């Protein structure tokens, strides 16, 4: 499970060094551009000094030796390459981020809407992309239409599915004066509505701004890391200055180029070179998940999440219930219920309706009245009765209906369908009316209510499921058990979240028993049943009062206050404008389960920054042992005892410098894709990474420098 998750967050890298990137990296070598990166600016300055030594050693009395001109040239070249590796990494990261950002433009929510144009008193429907709608425009919303943007109902009553936006599974009734939310879906009837907001493109614009390094504001953590780097640079500058002074006053005859080599090796060049690209690639990785962050800060905060509010619908469950069992009342059998369900759902294209057909089909309850469906009268779902159904008039049996269902379903039925031995029952003139709906709605239309009606319904609720009642010719024949379907992987994801010490809280509009059973199934200990959207705000407030960092998703207007208050708020692109404004991230794919990936990415970003910083500092230990024996070799030969690696005295400095330079491009992939990690507790991650990047950071350069030294001496 964990490998799958880590695979999910380690983004495949397809970047190639293009010509454009190459040119960009060279342009960035200009000292004016490098000012933004003090460590690298210093490396470039040292390049100029050593280059001057190579050209005219006599200009540096007591510090340079004219017999070493070639050596100076080599050192200068490596210094320049070191700086270039840094600008190359910047250019790469920026180009990658820009490419991703551009590709996201295409994902921008595009919904076609039916705009009503009133010309000379007559109404005309014009298909219009949602982007072109403006406040005040009128639109027509028919069954199965997606509401393009937030609007207000002017005419009509309809049931609207807002489950993806509010987390409530039930359909909502909308009447004139009500607001319909962008992204919700009309389930029945027809509405006329007026657009209340303008579509907004700011996310994409904001996104593009964030990836342009020159304008990208540093996050608080990035600022702090920069201060550490400047501090270390200051320390090493003093150190090298003092060492130069000591060499002069004690006549130790240190060569300036070796001193500079030591200086550059000690400077935190690795993290200095990679720091900008680490932050940028973090944002790029979010983009690849189709998430737009409004600030880098929110991404960092995501790593600190203590509590994560998960809407049941859309995050934990797929959003629709599925039929799992037929329960007949006394006098009927399962087949009766199954066949009735089949017939009643044939014309019902909702996922719920399709699940009834599938269950009946799988149980072999394919009704003989099948072909009667062609001539049936369909009762569309209506908000007022909260039922739907079908009235069959006659039919010869055996034959497959020519309409309804899907082509694939009809094909499968053809293979599965076997006529009953006694032959088809001619329905003749008898009419059969089958109605399905909520138990209390069906209760009202049947002639008599079976004695165990309420008991069965209650038992189903107690198990966390939902009941749907079926009547045939106004007689209650049975109940269908509908169950929430979990999203694939959700259990593993919840487990990973818990392993990392984050507390998941499930928010659902369901009644407590249903909520409890689903929570238990996915391993969530805390849940809020019968939640109204405004409850989220209270939960965020309560958790924050306990100083916890809260992450949440939301999309409805009602979510806006909670989204604004939460430390990490991820809004769905399908959601309302208000929600998107309030949140600090927007998921263009409107997949609420991604909040978990956001938390992972936040952690990964911080981890990567820490890992490269630690690695960079730990590297310095080995470099001392490479360069110190050479620095005063002519005057203090005893210090050669520090040459524990047995490096060649002529090659040690170059080896250390080359290692120092080459480690930058070697770590670019790490900076770009981030440190891979298995979800685990804070301390485990801390200790594991300290082993790899801290202790490893001390050891690796010893090995690397030795290998380079051997390679050089072979040349």
């Amino acid at each position, binding site marked *: 499970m964990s490998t799958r998750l880590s695979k999910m967050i380690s983004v495949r890298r397809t970047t190639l060094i293009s010509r454009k990137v190459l040119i960009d990296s060279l342009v960035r070598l200009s000292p004016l551009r490098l000012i933004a990166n003090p460590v690298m600016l210093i490396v470039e300055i040292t390049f100029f000094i050593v280059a001057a030594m190579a050209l005219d050693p006599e200009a540096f009395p007591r510090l340079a030796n004219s017999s070493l001109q070639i050596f100076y040239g080599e050192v200068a070249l490596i210094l320049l390459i070191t700086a270039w590796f840094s600008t190359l990494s910047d250019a790469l990261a920026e180009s990658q981020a820009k490419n991703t950002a551009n590709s996201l433009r295409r994902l921008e929510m595009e919904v076609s809407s039916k705009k009503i144009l009133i010309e000379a008193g007559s109404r005309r429907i014009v298909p219009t992309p949602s982007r072109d709608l403006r406040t005040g425009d009128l639109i027509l919303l028919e069954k199965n239409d997606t509401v393009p943007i937030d609007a207000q109902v002017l005419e009509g009553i309809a049931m609207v599915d807002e489950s993806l936006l509010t987390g409530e599974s039930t359909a909502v009734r909308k009447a004139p004066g009500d607001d319909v939310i962008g992204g919700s879906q009309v389930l029945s009837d027809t509405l006329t509505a007026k657009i209340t907001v303008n579509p907004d493109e700011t996310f994409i614009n904001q996104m593009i701004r964030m990836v342009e390094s020159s304008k990208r504001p540093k996050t*608080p*953590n990035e*600022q*702090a*890391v920069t*201060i*550490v780097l*400047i*501090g270390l640079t*200051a*320390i090493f500058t*003093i*150190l090298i200055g*003092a*060492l130069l*002074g*000591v060499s002069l*006053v*004690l*006549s130790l005859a240190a060569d300036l180029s070796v001193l500079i080599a030591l200086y550059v090796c*000690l400077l935190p060049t690795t993290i200095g070179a990679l720091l900008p690209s680490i932050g940028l690639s973090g944002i790029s990785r979010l983009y690849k998940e189709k998430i737009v962050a409004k600030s880098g800060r929110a991404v*960092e*905060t995501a*790593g*600190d999440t*203590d509590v994560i509010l998960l809407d049941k619908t859309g995050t934990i469950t797929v959003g629709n219930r599925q039929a799992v069992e037929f329960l007949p009342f006394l006098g009927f059998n399962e087949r009766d219920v199954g066949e009735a369900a089949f017939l009643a759902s044939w014309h019902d294209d909702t996922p719920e309706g399709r699940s009834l057909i599938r269950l009946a089909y799988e149980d072999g309850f394919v009704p003989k009245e099948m072909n009667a469906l062609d001539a049936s009268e369909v009762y569309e779902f209506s908000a007022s009765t909260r039922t739907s159904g079908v009235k069959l008039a006659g039919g010869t049996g055996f034959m497959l209906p020519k309409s309804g269902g899907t082509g694939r379903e009809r094909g499968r039925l053809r293979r599965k369908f076997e006529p009953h031995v006694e032959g088809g029952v001619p329905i003749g003139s008898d009419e059969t009316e089958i109605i399905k709906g909520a138990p209390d709605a069906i209760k009202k239309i049947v002639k008599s209510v079976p004695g165990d009606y309420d008991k069965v319904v209650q038992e189903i609720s107690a198990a966390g499921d939902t009941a749907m009642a079926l009547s045939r010719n106004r007689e209650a024949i049975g109940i269908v058990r509908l169950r929430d379907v979990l999203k694939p992987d959700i259990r593993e994801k919840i487990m990973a979240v818990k392993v*990392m*010490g984050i507390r998941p809280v499930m928010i659902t509009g369901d009644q407590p028993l249903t909520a409890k059973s689903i929570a238990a199934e996915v391993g969530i200990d805390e849940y809020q049943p019968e939640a109204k959207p405004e409850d989220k705000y209270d939960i965020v407030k309560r958790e924050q009062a*306990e*100083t*916890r960092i809260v992450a949440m998703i939301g999309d409805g207007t009602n979510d806006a206050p909670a989204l604004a208050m939460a430390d990490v708020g991820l809004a769905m692109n399908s959601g309302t404008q208000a929600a998107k404004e309030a949140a600090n991230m927007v998921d263009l794919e409107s997949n609420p389960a991604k909040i978990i990936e956001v938390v992972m990415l936040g*952690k*990964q970003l*911080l*981890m990567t*920054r*820490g*890992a490269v*910083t*630690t690695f960079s*500092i*730990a590297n310095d*230990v080995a470099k*001392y042992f490479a360069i*110190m024996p050479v*620095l*005063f070799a002519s005057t*203090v030969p*005893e*210090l050669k*005892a*520090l040459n524990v690696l047995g490096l060649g005295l002529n090659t040690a400095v170059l080896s250390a410098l080359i290692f120092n330079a080459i480690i930058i491009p070697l770590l670019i992939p790490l900076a770009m894709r981030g440190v891979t990690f298995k979800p685990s507790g*804070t*301390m485990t*991650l*801390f*200790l594991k*990474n*300290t082993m790899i990047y*801290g202790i490893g950071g001390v050891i690796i350069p010893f090995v690397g420098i030795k290998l380079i030294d051997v390679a050089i001496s072979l040349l």
Partner: protein
Amino acid sequence: MDWKEYFLAALIVNIFQMALAFVIFAFQGVLPLNPQGFPGLSWDLAFMQVISFGTNTNLQHYSGEGNCVQLPNCTALRPGVPGLSYLSQMMAVQFLQFTSAATGICVAVAMIRGFIIHSKDSGNFYVDFTRTLTRILFPLCFVASLVFVGLGVPQTLTGYQITKTVEGAAQTILVGPVASLASIMQLGTNGGGYYGANSAYPFQNPNPASDVFQIFLMLLIPTTLCFVFGQLIGKKRETRPILWGAYALFALDLLIAFTPNFPVVGPGMEVRFGGFFSVFWTVVTTAATTGSVNTSLSGLYPLVILSAFNGMLIQATPGGKGVGVMYMVMFIVLTVFIVGLMSGRTPEYLGLKITARDVKLVMIAFLVHPVIVLVPTVLAYSTGAAGAIGVGTNSIGFTKIFYEFTSAAANNGSDFLGATANTPFFNISTAIVMFLGRFAPIGLLLALGGSMINRKRLTTEAGVRTDSPLFALILVGSILVLVLLTFFPFLALGPILEFFQGRVNGF
């Protein structure tokens, strides 16, 4: 008081106290309690000495018993060396030893207050100072002084005793108010002895019992303050990284000092209580930045000196009273920030998020040390000041100069040069180094503590657990890497080079 007011109050009180002591030093010749008739100190020496004692450093460019070459059987003492009257020993040296120790404890507590939940300010310096003196230092020193007298340390105001030896020669017995000074000098991690030879002089350290007792006193308050930290912030477990970190480094110092060379002291050198004691003392006195010595540093092997450098460069093993804890908190914040980032959370310590400003304060505090150690070391040679007092340009000479400023910056006070460094250059340069080495980090770390007040505090304990043994280990590793990275080349030119040159003891 907020941290600024607190710092200012501490600074002003300290400056007034140093000014009073300056008057005593400069005019001791005309002031009472001067049975030996010592003249006043020169202005630059008096200036350097008040800063030395006022900053808890106790670098001494004089010899307390003075130039008593005209006195019988005083040959061990160097001629031309300034001495101190009883009044100076009491009202300048001992006085500042008390007040600088108290100040150290006060500022540490003031910084810790910032980390206490719901604390409103840094406290009141005047109240803290008075209580530290009357409730901690006076009672402890009272007991310690009497123990010292019982063990043979003199405590008298009558002048030097002239006696006739068994063989009939005249001999001067250098007595004075030694016990009361010895108690605060060790307890307050001051280290400035009554005599030039410090605790190598039998009257200041008569026997092994007094030797062990002094080691105990040196470590008492710095170690206790590690516990005070956990106690005050209400999380006793948080004492662990400070205490464990300090003593793990201390153990490492001992390892460096002892393992490679046994016997640990060169032949013919001071072995009053055996080589073990001399080396152990040296490690303790630098680890606690006390600076008292019970042996001549010149008699020690290079690796013992390396270990002494370690103690003074880290300053938190357990460090001087008060500031040791402050430095360790500084190292913890730095470690939590750099290494802790790898836990995948933005760094926090004690539930407080580490901000960019915190990092800035910590980095500057860390930066002060290399500046004030390395710059004057180079200057001492380039100005010719080192050559003027006969210090050479070889590894031995370099070690002495580097040690002098390291000791001054760390407010330690042990040194190779002693009264030979009584020149305007060394007096003024060490005075500046000691002052900056003391008050710059204190001000910066008080600001760090002060900025924690009213900061949002996470009670979730979801960050890196600083109270775990593995964290202490990582802390030790980070401290070693950070400190050694900063000073390694200079250690390499000093004690490490001497070691490679095969010096047994060579000064």
